[in-house]
């Protein structure tokens, strides 16, 4: 066990994965000599050489497309996109290629690859270095969407992703890159993809969240002594329906917290799943505490990202019922 932050945990996962499996190869802008703008790939170039840690020209669709082609010919590429905000330039490659090749080829061709990218606000990045665009991927059948909320999960989910035979969008909450330190095993381990994690137990209500918002939620409830289940989804597609239903059945009161804009944010799907399948258990409205339906502001980012006040407003509303 070593104490690590998320950057170190991801770096170690990459390093261990690449050491073991020579079919793993990395591509991205500034990931080599520079070690990545967030230093996540630091040291990998010198360990694995420029054939496996590839500094690429500035063209997201090209490097994702190349990754797909590598995957089709037997490799397991890991592509880094510098900021999730810039991924839209490659959306056709993601939606129409990466996600649909297994299907359209009748299962003849498969795309075992990982697309890593930092997302979310909190670093004073304004409109284009703060977005939480997970919905665009979660709506896309064929993709698997994962996001860790702590160093342990980051390493374990990434090691799991490296063994998966379908394309994975691995969303890294950049705000948490260095804020949480945790004991992380030096050895290899996997955290199962598709399984949520009940990170706090309580009887009064359920808070369902993921990624960057998990520490915020945990802080808010511990500070305010809220007796809540807190479910960290970890995988956004496919979602762990059983874990969601279990906590709903237990508490009957649900708050969903995420940073992405509300309209068709991931919370909409969680809410709809509950309203479709567990409505009889509900003792109140399903509340969403989310980023507003606007672009992400620079100076006022603390107003954008849900914080204690808004979480507690929702908690109070539900607690008051009955």
């Amino acid at each position, binding site marked *: 066990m070593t104490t690590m932050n998320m950057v170190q945990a991801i770096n170690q996962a990459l390093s261990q994965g690449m050491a073991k499996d020579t079919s793993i*190869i990395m591509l991205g802008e500034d990931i080599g000599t520079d070690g990545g703008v967030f230093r996540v790939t630091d040291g990998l170039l010198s360990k694995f050489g420029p054939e496996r840690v590839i500094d690429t020209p500035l063209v997201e669709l*090209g490097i994702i497309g190349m990754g797909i*082609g590598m995957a089709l*010919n037997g490799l397991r590429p890991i592509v880094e996109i510098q900021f999730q905000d810039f991924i839209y330039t490659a959306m056709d490659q993601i939606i129409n*290629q990466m996600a649909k090749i*297994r299907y*359209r*080829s009748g299962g003849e061709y498969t795309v075992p690859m990982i697309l890593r990218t930092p997302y979310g606000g909190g670093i004073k990045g304004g409109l284009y270095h703060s977005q939480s665009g997970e919905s665009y991927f979660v709506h896309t*059948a064929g993709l698997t969407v994962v996001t860790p909320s702590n160093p342990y999960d980051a390493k374990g989910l990434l090691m799991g992703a490296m063994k998966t*035979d379908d394309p994975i969008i691995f969303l890294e909450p950049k705000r948490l890159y260095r804020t949480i330190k945790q004991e992380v095993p030096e050895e290899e381990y996997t955290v199962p993809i598709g399984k949520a994690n009940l990170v706090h137990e309580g009887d009064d209500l359920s808070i369902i969240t993921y990624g960057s918002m998990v520490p915020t939620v945990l802080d808010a409830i511990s500070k305010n002594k809220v007796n809540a289940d807190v479910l960290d989804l970890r995988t956004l597609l496919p979602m762990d329906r059983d874990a969601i239903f279990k906590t709903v059945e237990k508490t009957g009161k649900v708050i969903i917290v995420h940073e992405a804009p509300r309209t068709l944010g991931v919370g909409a799907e969680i809410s709809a799943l509950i309203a479709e399948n567990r409505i009889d258990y509900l003792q109140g409205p399903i509340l969403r505490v989310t980023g507003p339906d606007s672009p992400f502001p620079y100076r006022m980012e603390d107003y954008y990202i849900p914080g204690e006040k808004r979480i507690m407003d929702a908690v109070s509303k539900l607690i008051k019922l009955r």
Partner: protein
Amino acid sequence: MADTKTDNKTKFIKGYTAMVLSRTLDKKIVNAQRQGRVGFYTPTMGQEALQIGAGMALEDRDLIYGYYRDVPLMISRGVPIETILNQIFGNSADISKGRQMPSHFGVKKFNFMSVPSPVASNMPLAVGAAYSIRYKKENKIVLSTFGEGSTSTPDFHASMNLAAVFNVPVVFLCENNGWAISMPVEKQTKVEIWTKAAAYGMRGIKVDGNNMLETYEVVSDAIKRARAGEGPTLIDAISYRMGPHSTSDDPSKYRSQEVTEGSENDPITVTEKLLKGMNYIDDKFIESIKAKTQKIVDDKFDECEKIPPPDPATAFQDVYKNMTWMLSEEVGGIL
């Protein structure tokens, strides 16, 4: 020398035979579409010489990242016409399980990558595959095909630059048929396509795509270089789209037909003249091969048409290795 000559004779006659098969099949499918027996098709008429010339230059182990107008290329590679027809029908024998629109082939056994519709989107994949070939020290190259209209896309630009920068073993074959649906190449871009290669530090070359032999030479040379680690080439193979863009298209809205079947620029006419000039074939051979081919095509077409559609349940498999719970649930409600 004598051997090369015999080799060439066999090769070229095989090429010509593939051209006849392609053309016969093409017309068969287009006619069947008019009768409502086929849903959709993108005719290849006019592009046989360049595709088959290129196909002849490839080894079986080489990878093809093609596009929706590559039936002659598949034929030259030896893909059975049943495989092609089953895809056209989307029946239960179709490799892609009836999922893709006709003309969107994929046959892994023949290293012919599954074709997407967004034009040029196969190109970056070709570059990645080529990179992985070198990384794995495989003795292969990648051939990537696309139309001249597709050179305007993001994917073309990305692929050209990446292929050049990484110096990977890929050959880009632009099937320049002069038209992108209703858009003539002159309005697509102000320069000749092959000249675009220079913008990436890549070799670019133009070839008469109606001439199977010339195309064969040029593609062979590019492949030899790619195999030798000398990097990618862009080949601009000039031809003419003799048919409509697709069976949904009416070209009379935007152009007058410049090359008609049997006219001197029809690549089949060109090839017949060439091979006759080399004394490789004669009129009798031509006649008999055409008749024989027609019979084969008619028979295979009828056979494949009879094959039942896929089991509806298969329509929702292969989204992932394992079906998600959402899809299982949804499919449960559908079937």
